[in-house]
């Protein structure tokens, strides 16, 4: 009897999921900011108790956390020095020199993580080719070491121009610092993010250095507490790219822990995509403040090599900090249950991105929130049961929801409360639908061909309507959706993606040089994976970032091989043209093609999932309760059947309009859909024949 445990520390809750032969046991406990490990132990004790599992039966703990993201947002990092090339002291402050909001005269740009007085410059320079233009002298190294020593720093980040092409200067600088100051946390841009483009690379190495002392301290404390408690199972960390890595790697490269919670959610959804045989899936996770959307193709979440963290301005693109590290690609928008609705100067209902969060929360929570929110609108429209919200833990007050909606919305717009509430949910659904549609368009996909997999507290309420708007035919609501990320952790492979900026023009392709570089990437990635995976068989995949010479942005191109022979440039060209055509519908003749960055992923094989077959025969549910619920598509109130999810067995079908209730949330099935319970406990919502 061995058990595996997934632990996800989120902003509000720490979710724990335990899985053994008897099944899955989950719990939620409040996150403890002072001692995050205390909440973990509490959660583990609770699930072990529930599943009747002894601590020594735990075989593995898989951990993901938003603590790194939060440390960056709240600026609770180490005192960090940034050492960079002379002439480039202000790269992280000048950013991309633009304004992310065009019409705001009082725009405030985010402060850089390391203030100017802590940014030190070295007299050195490497060219784009890797050739040294200006040698870094020993005197210069000694001078900088002295400055760092005098400055009483806990961490140092080193980021030199073109260090991805030639890391010698960074290494020499780091070695000298390491000798002089053994306790200093040192991060190198050529190790943490060896890719071309100075701004994201510098941001990444600085973020890494900035959080490293804190993360190292926390992880060591966690390990010690686990041992004290009698849990000696190995611990692995979920990284941003959706795979597992060792605690040692996490301590060395904590920047790879960013957004690991949401990545867990995507893996959770990917598991259902595989077991239900869905080639193209769209995961949709909606909580109190934001909604996240991720594309899952052939069972794997879409990945990217840069993303933006800590957005400071209404989740707006450009208002955060771009880092380059392998990541599960997600769109996040300010749309959640707590999103506040208002009327703007043109008489338009606007929803979010401002959120009432969970404190004071929506007006109907009776905790002092006065503004009308999405949750208030859902309550008014009959989509939530005031007595059974969050398993009855929060009692909702429809009177307060109506009062807030009438005061701020319906009286201003001169419409009924129901119409205003409908306007709120319709607008938030519209915002999410637009974000999802743009995301798929950016990848050259048609959203109509996707199946949605929805989880998180708010998603089951909104998913049906979202599918109506997007023309999606099928929707899955998995069980345990409230702790999806923690469950997702249990399905993650061991993996590591090594990246390198290595410029190649296809018409001057140097197979030997590329193979030599690939050996290094392979060695790097394989050794990290081996730390957790031992001797398990590994899968390798290469993605190269290519473009036509003269273009500014590369597209990711999956390449079937990772070692090349002379003449293989034609293979790369064919791969590029196929990818380019898929994205943009055409290729351009007569232009040279070039490669900038390389990403090599080594991973253990993803666990085979058992295919879920459709239930053999269908039967109708006994609906004893009927409630009035507003159907957005038909624009009117209908009688919706209310069914408890727990009462449904494989093959139970309920025709929409219907509400399927459970402890954590409710699933709304709109009039044009029906819902069928599957053998694995998932709800499959599909368009009625007549509505197609």
């Amino acid at each position, binding site marked *: 009897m061995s058990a595996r445990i997934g632990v996800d520390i989120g902003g509000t809750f720490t979710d724990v999921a335990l899985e053994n032969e008897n099944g899955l046991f989950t719990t939620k406990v409040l996150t403890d900011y002072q001692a995050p490990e205390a909440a973990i132990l509490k959660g583990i004790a609770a699930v072990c108790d529930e599943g009747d599992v002894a601590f020594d039966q735990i075989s593995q703990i898989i951990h993901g956390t938003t603590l790194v993201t939060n440390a960056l947002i709240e600026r609770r990092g180490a005192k960090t020095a940034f050492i960079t090339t*002379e*002439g*480039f*002291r*202000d*790269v992280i*402050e*000048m950013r*991309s*020199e*633009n*304004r992310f909001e*065009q*019409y*705001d*005269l*009082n*725009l405030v*740009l985010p402060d850089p993580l390391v203030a*100017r*007085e802590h940014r030190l410059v070295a007299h050195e*320079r490497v*060219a*784009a080719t890797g050739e040294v*233009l200006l040698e870094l002298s020993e005197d210069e190294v000694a001078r900088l070491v002295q400055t760092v020593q005098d400055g009483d720093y806990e961490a140092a980040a080193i980021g030199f*121009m*073109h260090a991805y092409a030639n890391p010698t200067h960074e290494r020499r600088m780091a070695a000298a610092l390491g000798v002089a100051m053994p306790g200093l946390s040192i991060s190198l841009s050529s190790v943490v993010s060896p890719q*071309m483009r*100075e*701004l994201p690379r510098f941001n990444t190495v600085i973020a890494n250095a900035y959080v490293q002392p804190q993360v190292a301290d926390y992880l060591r404390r966690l390990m010690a507490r686990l041992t004290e408690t009698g849990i000696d199972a190995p611990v692995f960390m979920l990284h941003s790219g959706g795979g597992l890595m060792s605690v040692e790697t996490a301590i060395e490269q904590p920047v790879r822990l960013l957004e690991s919670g949401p990545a867990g959610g995507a893996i959770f959804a990917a598991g259902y995509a595989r077991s239900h045989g869905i080639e193209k899936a769209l995961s949709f996770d909606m909580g109190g403040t934001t909604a996240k959307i991720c594309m899952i193709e052939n069972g794997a979440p879409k990945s990217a090599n840069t993303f933006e963290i800590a957005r400071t301005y209404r989740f707006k693109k450009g208002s955060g900090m771009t880092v380059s590290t392998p990541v599960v690609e997600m769109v996040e928008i300010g749309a959640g249950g707590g999103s506040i609705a208002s009327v*703007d*100067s*043109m*008489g*338009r*209902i606007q929803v979010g991105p401002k959120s009432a969060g969970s404190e004071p929360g929506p007006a109907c929570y009776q905790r002092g929130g006065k503004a009308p929110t999405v949750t208030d609108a859902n309550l008014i429209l009959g989509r939530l049961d005031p007595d059974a919200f969050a398993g009855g833990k929060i009692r909702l007050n429809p009177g307060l929801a109506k009062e807030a909606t009438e005061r701020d919305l319906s009286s201003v*717009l001169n*419409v009924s409360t129901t*119409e205003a509430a*409908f306007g709120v949910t*319709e*607008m938030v659904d*519209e*915002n999410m639908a*637009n974000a999802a549609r*743009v995301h798929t*368009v*950016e990848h050259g996909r048609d959203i109509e061909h996707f199946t949605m997999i929805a989880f998180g507290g708010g998603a089951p309420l909104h998913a049906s309507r979202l599918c109506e*708007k997007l*023309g999606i035919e099928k929707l899955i609501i998995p069980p345990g959706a409230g702790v999806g990320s923690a469950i997702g952790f249990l399905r993650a492979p061991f993996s590591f993606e090594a990246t390198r900026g290595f*410029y190649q023009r296809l018409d001057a392709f140097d197979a030997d040089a590329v193979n030599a570089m690939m050996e290094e990437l392979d060695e790097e990635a394989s050794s990290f994976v081996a730390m957790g995976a031992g001797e398990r068989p590994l899968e390798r995949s290469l993605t190269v970032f290519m473009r*036509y010479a*003269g*273009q*500014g942005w590369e597209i990711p191109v999956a390449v079937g091989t990772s070692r090349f022979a002379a003449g293989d440039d034609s293979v790369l060209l064919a791969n590029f043209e196929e990818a380019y055509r898929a*994205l*943009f519908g055409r290729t*351009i003749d007569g*232009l040279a093609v070039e490669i*900038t960055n390389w990403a090599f992923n080594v991973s253990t094989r993803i666990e085979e999932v058992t295919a879920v077959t459709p239930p053999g025969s269908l039967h109708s549910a006994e609906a004893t309760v009927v409630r009035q619920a507003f159907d957005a598509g038909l624009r009117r109130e209908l009688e919706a059947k209310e069914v408890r999810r727990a009462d449904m067995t494989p093959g139970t079908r309920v025709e929409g309009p219907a509400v399927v209730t459970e402890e954590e949330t409710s699933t709304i099935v709109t009039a044009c859909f029906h819902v069928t319970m599957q053998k694995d406990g998932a709800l499959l919502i599909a368009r009625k024949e007549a509505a197609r």
Partner: protein
Amino acid sequence: MTPSGIDYQIMWNRLIAVVEEQATTLIRTAFSTSVREAGDLSAGLFDRSARMIAQAVTGTPGHVNAMAESVGHFAAEIGAQSIFEGDVYITNDPWKGTGHLHDITMVTPVFRSGVHIGYFACTAHVVDIGGRGFGPDAGEVFEEGLLIPISKFAERGTVNDFMLKIIRENVRTPDQTVGDIYSLAACNDAGNRRLQAMLDEFDLADIDGLSDFIIDASRRATLKAIADVPDGVFDNTMQVDGYDTPTHMQVRLKVSGEDLLADFSGTSGMSAFGVNVPEVYTRAYACYALKCAIAPEVPNNTGSLDPFLITAPEGCILAAKRPAPVSVRHVLGHLVPDVVLGALHKALPDVVPAEGASALWNIQISARASEPNGDLPNAEVLMFNSGGTGARPALDGLSATAFPSGVSTMSVEATEHVGPIVVWRKELREGSGGAGARRGGLGQIIEIEPRAGYDFYFNAMFDRVENPARGRNGGSDGAAGRVELADGTKLRSKGRQLVRNEERLKLSLPGGGGYGDPLGRDRDLVEADLRAGLITVEQAKDDYGYEG
């Protein structure tokens, strides 16, 4: 189904997403550096009366009104009887499009069940349009490249091959320029597909009702915001460098109830060089500045743009006449907001910022082998760079940040892969922000050297070298710009010049003006600036009276 107000709101929201998607498609497929790095494009939807109902927010306020007006020219010249399903129209006429030949505007009529219901339009800056190339040195627009009059690029789905051949043979980069034309047409099609799907969903035959709803709501909100501006007549003048002689800009702002008029009478006459600005581009930047200060939250459409009446007398440098050269009309165009906001300041104190560097310092570099008979290839490099913005009434200015333009800079590492240059320095210019209770944003210093075996030419189009950004309410001026070699040799701030191997071009970009008395600046902020090296010890003492 008769749509309710809430349905219209939802459709309005959707249309904005549709035009944003249209713009995104263009950014991702365009070849032109300024499109994908700088957002030098626009995309929008118009009703059948050529009224703009939605436009994407992109990096170029200069396209806002320009595009809104251009579709009217298309509708008039093509003529209702000649508008067919499957047509695509094109022009790059500076006076009917967006101000210079490099911007190509394409318009696609939208049909539903065989009935013409509106237009999609988009504009992008192409890599090359022939002529002298992108620079101020032409004497007439004829030298600046190929002018494509308003005409049918495609009729009933058939592309005009003759036109394609003319374009291909008259530009240096036929594949890329023609590729961009197809991208423009494709992005209109993408917008059309989304629009039709929305009309299906809401079961609508046309967009007339929706258009009225959007334009009326926007007009009402804008008029109300204008009515909140105190009535009066407010004047302002500003002198800028111009090409070879100082240029005087003058504006009179008349506000009366819901009416607002900005009149540029008194502004200098045209230049002999390509810094002239067609009036449509002046209107765009003036309107942008006014909108930022008065009604920033109202989306751009005919209803929100129309209430801002802007005029400049034909023949002045801000309303250039054919056949004036206009290639780098952005330099003076970017300075228009400063002069307009200075006038508005007299009506609305404590709202608008001090003057800033404002005009972008774009550098177009042509690297050439020092030994012409060798086998080193030529290379073209384009960089966008920004100085400091003016301090705001309650906030410091933004350092090295574009305003009013919304462009982005490029990575130096990426730039060094494009051409044989080394950028030795690109960092904040210490001490360049105008002193004030709120400090102006800092400019930046850039040093560029050709790599071994190369010289390079660069096209200077830099302003605020002779005339710095002025402070406001007792704030000091920002530092003026400088164009020189690193050894101190002075260079011209406009026109094509050579930098030889082993020489370094050094550009010192202007800082923004300060706001309010520097002696009133919070001492903690003075100390912080000193610690960060944003101001010098002497400035702290002399400008801020800081004794430390």
